[in-house]
């Protein structure tokens, strides 16, 4: 009984002195250094928590935090959308009637992207899309602060093609296909006529 009471008091005093020490000890500002720094784990004593929006810890440049697409380099091959395990990439492609330019690595672009959406809410950060990309235009960046107020804002749209423009491009493609079909038909007829 007495032992218990004394034990209770000593343990309570121990706890109280611990919190009392911390009350005054931890007033130093945390230095912003990377985890890879040798001093990183040594500065846990006597500092307070990181004041996040004001202090940001450096992160590795190759971090898998969110996807980004450089549309100028994209040849709209649809490989990323096909390999995605959770189907978070949606691509709507329109074939161009002619070569529409070159990517920075020299590949000729022949397809328009009417739509290139990545739903970051679905993404599981496996990075497979960045591996299959032939032009390395889809990459994972080190931007991690991506909270949004509405869920639909997590659906990143990388192409902003107006529906009229898309319709026009489709019409052009159809016209070209029709022309080719007609040419083919004419050629076939001619062949048959010759025979």
């Amino acid at each position, binding site marked *: 009984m007495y032992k218990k009471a004394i034990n209770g008091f000593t343990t309570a005093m121990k706890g109280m002195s611990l919190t009392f020490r*911390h009350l005054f000890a931890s007033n130093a500002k945390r230095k912003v250094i990377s985890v890879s720094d040798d001093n990183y784990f040594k500065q846990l004593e006597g500092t307070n928590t990181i004041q996040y929006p004001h202090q940001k810890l450096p992160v590795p440049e190759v971090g898998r935090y969110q996807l980004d697409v450089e549309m100028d380099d994209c040849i709209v091959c649809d490989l990323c959308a096909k390999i995605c395990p959770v189907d978070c990439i949606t691509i709507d492609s329109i074939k161009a009637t002619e070569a529409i330019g070159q990517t920075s690595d020299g590949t000729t672009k022949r397809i328009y992207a009417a739509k290139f959406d990545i739903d970051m809410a679905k993404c599981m950060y496996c990075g497979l899309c960045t591996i299959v990309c032939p032009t390395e235009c889809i990459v994972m960046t080190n931007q991690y602060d991506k909270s949004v107020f509405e869920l639909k804002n997590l659906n990143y749209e990388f192409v902003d093609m107006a529906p009229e423009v898309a319709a026009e491009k489709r019409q052009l493609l159809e016209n070209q296909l029709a022309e080719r079909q007609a040419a083919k038909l004419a050629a076939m007829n001619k062949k048959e006529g010759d025979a």
Partner: protein
Amino acid sequence: MNFYTTYFLIAIGLFAFVALFTLFGVYAERKLSAFIQDRLGPTEVGKFGMLQTLADIMKLIQKELIIPAAADKVLFLMAPVIIFVAVYLGFAALPWAPGLVPANVNIGLYYILAIISIETLGILMAGWGSNNKYSILGAMRSAAQIISYEIPAGFALISVVMIAQTLNLQDISMQQGILSAEKTKFLGFWDVSANGGILAWNIFRAPHLIIAFVIYFIASLAESNRAPFDIPEAESELVAGFHTEFTGLQFALVFLAEYAMMYLVSMVGVILFLGAWNTPLPNIGAVHLANWTTGVAWGIFWIATKTMALIAVQMWIRWTLPRLRVDQLMNLCWKVLTPLAFLCMLISGVWRLWLM
């Protein structure tokens, strides 16, 4: 007519004090807990986050009052008011300085003990009226806890009353300093009527009152439902206990009552054990420190400082010690504190008869 104007002014002044103290108390508690846990606490609103609680109360005032469909409307709406008013009325009898007391009642201590036990009724009403299992569990726990702990607290206070021979809080305050009309003896043998200061405080006039003070302090933590005795609102088990369903201003009132209760019990502890509004500095020879630091303004300063210090200890305990289980709580109350309080009362009687 003038008579009533004074009454209203005093009531409004006390309410303003309670409200301001709550604003300050919440801020202080958040900062204290933050520093203890190696955080910084509120930093964004105003310099050092000092306007944080003001922003909080603005938000609470604007919020909708939601009454659950199944709640007992009358009980539910009245509960926070009763909880707060019960505590608020207790402030009426507390002396602030020599000659400065809202109501100089000759049964002041008895009145305070009686009026703050009405808070239990309000908590029960809140729990029952919410028609929610967590609320009713919290309210039942609270009633069991507060009523149990009133016994050791009451007996610890009675041991002071036996020494002081009065229930008038102003008289009890008067006895513990240089303004005392009767002889004051340090530890029962050294006449310190002329010295005053810390030597004349009740805990030093009769040293067993230190134990009584500790008993009272522990019991007062339980009575104001604060950790480690916060099982009525144990957030990890009962969501928020009896105030789970309250929103907006009603919640603000419950919060106001909690902080007002902290101040009230600390102030009662200071008045009865720690020399009330008397200065801690004694007269030493020609250096009349006690005479220089006694007066109305000094009185308010000393009692506020002592009370704040006691509240800081309450907060410090809250952020250090884990919550007690219900059976441990009752064990401590009935098997440890109550017998000790009885012992203190006995010693008080003997002390009064033989040593004073």
